[in-house]
């Protein structure tokens, strides 16, 4: 497991490749890797977004993400998972979150990455503040009842 809170722009694919190379090199039983990358869109709720401030709860965030990954590991037979999350000032098209899970078979990797993302979106202590032409505003949370319409 690897969790990282990152305070500057990062290259998610390079991070992924480096982790795989350094930590999972000998894992020849890996048959599947499911990756999710969330990036900043330049529009939200109909308004152009110039930039975004990603706040978090430093003392809680990393431990809480560990717990989310542990829960997925308990439920699905995965070999490893990582979560990287950006904080600070974010610009459109910047990577925000990278989740990756490796497993022997595809179902476990798909489900673990999905579960980690859903838990992260609804529980991990991050908050987005958007800069629009009208000023700053805190992003409204997703509605819990309509998972189908979730924001990425």
């Amino acid at each position, binding site marked *: 497991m690897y969790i990282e809170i990152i305070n500057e722009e990062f290259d998610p694919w390079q991070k992924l490749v480096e982790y795989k190379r350094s930590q999972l090199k000998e894992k020849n039983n890996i048959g599947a890797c499911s990756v999710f990358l969330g990036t900043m869109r330049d529009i939200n709720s109909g308004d152009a977004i110039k930039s975004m401030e990603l706040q978090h709860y430093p003392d809680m965030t990393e431990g809480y993400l560990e717990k989310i990954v542990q829960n997925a590991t308990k439920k699905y037979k995965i070999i490893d998972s990582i979560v990287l999350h950006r904080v600070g000032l974010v610009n459109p098209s910047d990577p925000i979150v990278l989740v990756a899970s490796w497993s022997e078979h595809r179902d476990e990797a798909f489900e673990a990455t999905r579960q980690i993302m859903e838990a992260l979106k609804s529980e991990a202590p991050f908050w987005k*503040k958007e800069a629009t032409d009208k000023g700053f505003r805190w992003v*409204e949370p997703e509605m819990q009842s309509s998972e189908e319409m979730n924001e990425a």
Partner: protein
Amino acid sequence: MYHSVIIMVIVVKYFASISDAIGKTSEQIEWQDKITAGDIWADVSKNIKYTGKVMVAVNHEYVDMSYLLSENDEIAFFPPVTGG
């Protein structure tokens, strides 16, 4: 006759729109006797107009408003999260 009074020191943190509404990011409060998360929220929010949902964590774990605090606990109040 005196009774012994227990004074608890509790660290309170605020994030995002709740931090904006309260006007600070953290404070330390002292309290006697049994106290719940809800008691603290009622006290710290009495002069603000925040009507949204409030999430509460004590020592970095989610709890509900009935949670009973102990000496040196860190309690945090924040709106629903919007990361990812």
